[in-house]
């Protein structure tokens, strides 16, 4: 599969990464190169095997649904680029 510039631009928008027009062509070439290489997996017959998502042996463990942490607003907000009155602050999203 060869990726064109438009596809790279669409993926970059999905990934929320701004790319310059000049970056699209080299990225399309590099990603196409990598995709052609990974497509050798098509040689493998996987019709009788289930996908493996993890090497962890068991399903996710359950715990009681109870509060185990909290009351640490300062720690949570301490690294935020901008805060206002105990909240993360971002550019306005509603006109």
């Amino acid at each position, binding site marked *: 599969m060869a*990726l064109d510039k438009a*596809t*790279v631009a669409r*993926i*970059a928008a*999905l*990934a*929320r*990464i*701004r*790319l310059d027009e000049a970056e699209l062509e080299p*990225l399309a070439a*590099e*990603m196409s*190169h*990598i*995709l052609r*290489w*990974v*497509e*050798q*997996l*098509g*040689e*493998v017959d*996987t019709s009788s*095997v*289930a*996908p*493996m*998502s*993890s*090497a*962890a*042996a068991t399903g*996710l*463990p359950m*715990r009681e649904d109870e509060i185990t942490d909290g009351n*640490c607003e300062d*720690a*949570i907000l*301490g*690294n*935020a*680029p*901008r805060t206002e009155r105990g909240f*993360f602050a*971002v*550019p306005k*999203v509603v006109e």
Partner: protein
Amino acid sequence: MSRLTALTLAEARDGLRAKRFSARELAEAYIAAMEAARPLNAYITETPERALAMATQSDERRARGAARPLDGIPIAVKDVFCTKGVLTTAASHILNGFHPPYESTVTQRLWAAGAIMLGKTNLDEFAMGSSNTTSHYGPVFNPWKKPGDNRPLVPGGSSGGSAAAVAAHAALAATGTDTGGSIRQPASYCGIVGLKPSYGRCSRWGVVAYASSLDHPGPLARTVEDAAILLGAIAGYDPKDSTSASLPVPDYEAALSGDVRGLRIGVPREYRADGMPAEIERLWEQGVEWLREAGAEPIEVSLPMTRYALPAYYIIAPAEASSNLARYDGVRFGLRVPGDSLEEMYELTRAAGFGPEVKRRILMGTYVLSAGYYDAYYLKAQRVRALIARDFAAAFERVDCLLTPTVPSAAFAIGENMDDPIAMYLNDVFTVPANLAGLPALSVPAGLSADGLPLGLQVIGRAFDEATVLRVGEVLETAAGFTHRPVETMIDGR
């Protein structure tokens, strides 16, 4: 007094116990070594004040008879482990100024055992790389050079700062993480020991995530014994990591019996890759011979899916990375580049914060997970992953562990392998399969290349059988008698 930084972790521990020197003296020696090694760029953040404060507390504990297993041992921490109140960067600009409000489980266990933090080591950005050249904080230099050739070499990656610091004796040992070889490959390039434990053996809580189903925290050390001691300190169940294994942790140091008689050592024929340098093949054969002489039984085995491990990895790892790295949005921590809208702020922040290799992997991951391609790429890779795990399971019905080379080459020069991403990815051809299957794997320095650079051999074991892996590794280490050091003695911190 003999040079304190020349001691192994086990020797330093014994010296501290016998009160031949204090934790403070040891910490001071390492702080001097860390400063002398600055040209290597192995550390992003040095924490000498914290090291001295911790050393003073350590000496006080020992004075009142309350010393702990690793009391006074100076350790370097790969800068993907969150350390409370200490800058944690993952070598990325996007984590600019991030001071975690909590401590990772692995480092918490080290400090609880009495160890001392020297600083945070450099790495490839978000642990994505095999050369430690993608760090926002600049490349790390391998303390080794080819004799008669002054060109700087890569330390390997992504735990390149940890490996360079340990090899240069600017840390007694270090933590690392290994997603596709990031502990073992730099260990091989720097002539030290690196252990990727089983998936679930060491908690990932507080470790900056790259690919969650493949990330394995583990130790880098000077000797197999040192790695065994460190693994014992950091391993164990952690309820904060939902994939942590609830299994007892054996005494790894006691498992180093030196006796491998009767052990069946698998030699996978598919690792005899086309174009493997003759010296790597010779070293591998030598390793098989060493184990045979020690009474083990080499058996040829087949892992037919080996050649598909790397392409499967380069679908699965970017897919998981694209999801994990979605959290870097300029809202809650790290870098923010202002924008007129929320959307624009996200896009500008991520454009400025991530380097080229990280962007490429996020984009690849986004693509293979996108509608219409999910089954063809992502699910296909996960099915191949299952077949790779099945290959190992079949082999381990016949053998107790596997012996392979760690890497198909010795360290390369900074700037090499940069034009073609796949050429760089091929460094991980022997290490990636153990990540996909979650198996413990150890790299032991076993010899020098014709160019005078270190080469490692890899021992892969059954899941959660680190004890056998370490036992076999120590026998290889003894047989190899690898006592070579990097040529630059100025980095020894005298």
